[in-house]
């Protein structure tokens, strides 16, 4: 803890995600104090920006973080491969890792759904952008009536899908589907991702379909639960909007003719560093900041505010 009663945190990775996260934490630090941004590329624009803002930076990567015993929380915005290595050394150094890569070393967290269960673990994982966007609403339906099957379609503007996503698109679908089951509560999950090249770029869209176990689940209770969850997510992602639905439909399914609940979401980014259409990246950095905030609060008080 620093002299000002805040928890010292660092960002590992100075690319687009790390830089957007830096701006978000500086804008709204809560109980955190950002003390270091560490990358490996001396030419990185993110590091130059951090320096210009008066932050300490390093091109030594995780090493610089390990050398500072006061840093308690580390946001890893590098790659899944690099995180496997970082996870080990950070744990040994007693630092909590908030993992924005698909490495999934630690348990999956979605702040308004299950973060409370994982405030004391050394490593938490943020799943995927599609997962952060859609799992809250699957959970919202599931808490009214258990979800037999959840299916989501994430559509992102081509410009906001980087090489990491493009080269590992299978991992997006399988990790997101697993998140729908493990955190969303669906008995079975399926995820689809579509890249849309339109110019100007489209704002990130997500469609969530749920088949409730109980075919007669009360639509009003589902609507109310969804509405409350949207408000909950909006606390940390202001551009999170339910554009259409919940729309109730009857469809032929492998379980006979069933009620399908469709919800159509739009996520506009805050534009802290990345463009506003890149809601897919914004929801990851916003979720990471929120996770850091709650873990820091927990470190300070031993309880969630």
């Amino acid at each position, binding site marked *: 803890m620093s002299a000002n009663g805040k928890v010292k945190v660092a960002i590992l990775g100075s690319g687009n995600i790390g830089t957007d996260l830096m701006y978000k934490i500086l804008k709204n630090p809560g109980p955190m104090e950002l003390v270091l941004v560490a990358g490996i590329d001396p030419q990185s624009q993110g590091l130059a920006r951090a320096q210009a803002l008066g932050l300490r930076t390093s091109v030594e990567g995780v090493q610089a973080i390990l050398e500072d015993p006061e840093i308690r929380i580390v946001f890893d915005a590098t790659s899944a491969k690099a995180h496997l290595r970082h996870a080990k050394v950070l744990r040994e150094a007693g630092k909590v890792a908030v993992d924005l890569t698909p490495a999934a070393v630690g348990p999956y967290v979605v702040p308004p759904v299950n973060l409370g269960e994982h405030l004391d673990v050394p490593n938490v994982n943020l799943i995927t952008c599609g997962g952060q966007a859609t799992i809250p609403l699957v959970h919202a339906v599931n808490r009214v009536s258990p979800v037999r099957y959840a299916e989501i379609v994430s559509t992102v503007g*081509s410009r906001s899908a980087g090489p990491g996503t493009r080269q590992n698109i299978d991992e997006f679908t399988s990790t997101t589907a697993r998140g729908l089951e493990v955190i969303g509560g669906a008995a079975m999950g399926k995820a689809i991702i579509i890249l849309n090249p339109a110019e100007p770029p489209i704002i990130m869209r997500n469609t969530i379909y749920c088949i409730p176990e109980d075919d007669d689940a009360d639509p009003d209770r589902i609507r109310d639960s969804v509405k409350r969850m949207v408000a909950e997510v909006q606390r940390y992602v202001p551009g999170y909007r339910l554009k259409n639905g919940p729309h109730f439909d009857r469809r*032929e399914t492998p379980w006979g003719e069933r009620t399908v609940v469709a919800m159509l979401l739009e996520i506009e980014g805050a534009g802290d560093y990345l463009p506003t259409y890149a809601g897919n990246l914004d929801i990851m950095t916003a979720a990471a900041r929120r996770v850091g905030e709650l873990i820091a609060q927990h470190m300070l008080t031993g309880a969630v505010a």
Partner: protein
Amino acid sequence: MKPPRITDTTLRDGSHAFRHQFTREQVRRVTAALDEAGVPVIEVTHGDGLAGSSIQYGFSRVPDLDLVDEAASAARRARIAILLIPGIGTRKELREAVRRGATVARIATQCTEADISEQHFGLAKELGMEAVGLLMMAHMISPQQLAEQARLMESYGADCVYVTDSAGAMLPWQVAAAVRELKQALRIQVGFHPHNNLGLGIGNCLAALEAGADQLDGSLRGCGAGAGNAATEVLAAVLDKAGLNPGLDVFRLMDAAEFVLAPMMPFQPMPDRDALTIGYAGTYSTFLLHARRIGEQLGLDPREILVELGRRKAVAGQEDWILDVALDLVRQKQAAVAS
């Protein structure tokens, strides 16, 4: 010009017209008929590729891998192809399809997004498959841009790349320009996949052929999404008259279309009002039946939904936008009435 290799996609693109309800028996009979008529490659998968069975696209009656099994055991000479659309299907299903007897992987992306297919081409080649790339909605970009994307697929290991007119929106000279550009840019083969929404299915195949295409797709009775594809039996007759028959039995294909497939078909796809709208507005052919269903449900004209989807530049696979657009239109109409 030289005789093209023909891939019949009745059991994949036709899956859309059948609302993905093909039975094992239907697949066995169609495969056997195509095989006997000398069709060298038969594509069998859910219309939206492996793992396409979903709320978004419609659930399959029979899991598509079981249908691949059925086709592989029914074919004596023909090779079985599957479709994989990265973002929907994954390498896991591709491995399984190979175990079930598929030997040709057709890997399709939106025409601007070829770089999401690298891992799938890699696996297809590793598994010893022939790998064919399809650049969908090819009408949306220039021949030069299309060639750039095709080169990516070539670098990942593709044996052929298709100009894929998913919206049935291309005119013959646009098809020819695209094929010619790809022929110049690539060392591998070039193919063309038509849709008949503007009534140009066969004509566009001929334009592609004249521009140097090595491979063409057809389906019996043109059974496919939107107004369907080029009818395989018609294509065979036309190629035969042109002296370019690659070894197809024209009469057997006519019989397969008339006596095997036609009695099973829920309807005959053709450039009717809605399908023509798709070609005219340049939207994805598979939107047809979804737009009709949602239009009927919400009291909207499918044409206004389809035109709006074209305006919003919806791309391959965005069936969820149909409901979104329809709900927006309903709200606009209610607001107009209220004021």
